[in-house]
């Protein structure tokens, strides 16, 4: 479609930076410099995003519950989470005498690194993506489920009974829900014929998959939402921390900044699954287009692609928050029943249906 060409391509910007650097230094140095640069940008983005998501969640749930939410620190309480972060930084790191010290200290880093790695492959805007792997979907799924190792280690090494139960629940949960997430993403991979995230976005230039893919795509979107909510341990699937049962689950024994790591990782994970969902089902940074309304489509194109991406992502984030603040928590056996008796079979059938649709060329 011709209109897509008007969208600003970030690769021109990154390309020119790259060229400028090449004029300055040797290729080896350039690579190092770029790695450091990208790393720093991501770190800053990561921290700010985490803080903002915590704030957002508190605001959203507050309004749902007829409250104001944070409104004391800074305008509209925007600085509240920063104040909380400073508080967490200054808190004492309580050492657990009988804990397995090495693993105990390692666990928060594993969790946070896993979420950090997943964010690398996210296409934020046209041409703005740290690494565009040709197996992007696969990579994101693989990396984001690494976090469970950290959770298991945290629960095991804390040497606390509550933590252990929480960690074991989390293990069972993530291992099973990983399947549904994979299968629901696979549906779109079948549609678009590529695993590359940028390719999937490009394939939605003439309409998002959730619209193009008929009902099966919608079903897999719902399955994706449910399963990924479970995968990131959020309510109503927050069994790993189930505060009314296990006080705080796997991070009961953590304090200060180590606790903050878990906390931050949880929110970043929420962002990541929302970003993946938005990219794969809702067209990523693609603007919203309606058929042949050229004028309308043109106006939509003027909204920067970055804005589109964040709009969609935060829409999904909002959905996930909406779930959490409405539903009661499931029990562990019901959680597994839901996966193995409902989500799994449905997504398998769904894939078959989709394969059939693609084979017959019925999708738009």
């Amino acid at each position, binding site marked *: 479609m011709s209109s897509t060409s008007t969208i600003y391509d970030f690769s021109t910007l990154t390309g020119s930076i790259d060229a400028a650097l090449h004029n300055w230094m040797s290729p080896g140095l350039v690579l190092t410099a770029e790695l450091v640069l990208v790393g720093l940008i991501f770190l800053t983005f990561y921290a700010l995003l985490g803080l903002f998501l915590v704030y957002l969640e508190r605001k959203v749930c507050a*309004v*749902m519950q007829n*409250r104001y939410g944070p409104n004391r620190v800074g305008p509209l309480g925007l600085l509240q989470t920063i104040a909380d972060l400073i508080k967490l930084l200054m808190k004492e790191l309580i050492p657990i005498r009988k804990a397995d010290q090495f693993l105990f200290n390692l666990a928060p880093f594993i969790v946070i690194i896993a979420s950090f790695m997943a964010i690398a492959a996210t296409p934020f805007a046209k041409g703005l993506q740290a690494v565009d792997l040709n197996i992007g979907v696969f990579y994101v799924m693989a990396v984001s489920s690494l976090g469970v190792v950290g959770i298991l280690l945290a629960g095991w090494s804390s040497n606390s009974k509550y933590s252990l139960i929480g960690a074991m629940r989390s293990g069972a949960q993530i291992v099973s829900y990983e399947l549904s997430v994979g299968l629901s993403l696979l549906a779109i991979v079948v549609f678009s014929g590529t695993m590359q995230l940028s390719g999937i976005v490009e394939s939605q230039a003439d309409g998002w998959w959730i619209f193009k893919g008929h009902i099966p795509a919608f079903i897999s979107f719902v399955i994706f939402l449910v399963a990924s909510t479970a995968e990131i341990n959020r309510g109503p699937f927050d069994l790993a921390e189930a505060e009314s049962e296990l006080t705080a689950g796997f991070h009961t024994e953590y304090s200060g900044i180590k606790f903050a790591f878990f906390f931050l990782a949880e929110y970043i994970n929420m962002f990541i699954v929302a970003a993946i969902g938005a990219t794969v089902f809702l067209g990523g940074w693609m603007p919203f287009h309606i058929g042949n309304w050229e004028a309308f489509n043109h106006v939509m194109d003027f909204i920067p692609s970055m804005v589109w991406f964040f709009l969609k992502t935060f829409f999904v984030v909002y959905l996930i928050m909406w779930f959490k603040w*409405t539903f009661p928590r499931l029990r562990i056996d019901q959680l597994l029943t839901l996966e193995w008796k*409902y989500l799994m079979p449905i997504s398998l059938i769904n894939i078959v249906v989709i394969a059939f649709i693609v084979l017959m060329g019925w999708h738009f």
Partner: protein
Amino acid sequence: MNMIFNYIREIFRAISSLWAGMRITGKYFVSPGQIVTQKYPENRATLKMQERFKGEIIMPHDENNQHRCTGCGICEMNCPNGSIEILTNRVPNADGKTERIIDKHIYHLSMCTFCGLCVKTCPSDALAFGQEFEHAVFDRKKLTKVLNQPGSSLKKEAKQ
């Protein structure tokens, strides 16, 4: 076939029940006008406690710095947890007889359970409930108050 039909119906019923709940929270999300929280320190000027609110025990004084407490000690006796101590003095009055007057009406806010018995049983209606509720202090001793103001005296009322 019937089983599959039930399976699908079950799923739809489940989703519709979940949607019903989400409608409720969603409804409140889009109507922030329904927020019930009061912005407390900001609304201090307009915040008015109910007239019967039991904030603390006070002894109302009139413009001549006079109260009505005779120092009879009934409130002290009726208080279930010893929150009130009455210290009296004996002074000669105009007729030359010694008379008991109140020296200090000591009230321990920290122990008071606001049962209202002292206010109710005081024979001369000398006590009342105050609307003050911001009682936080840094020193527990500050919660012990002397209710009759210094230099105050007993209001002599014409006997009806």
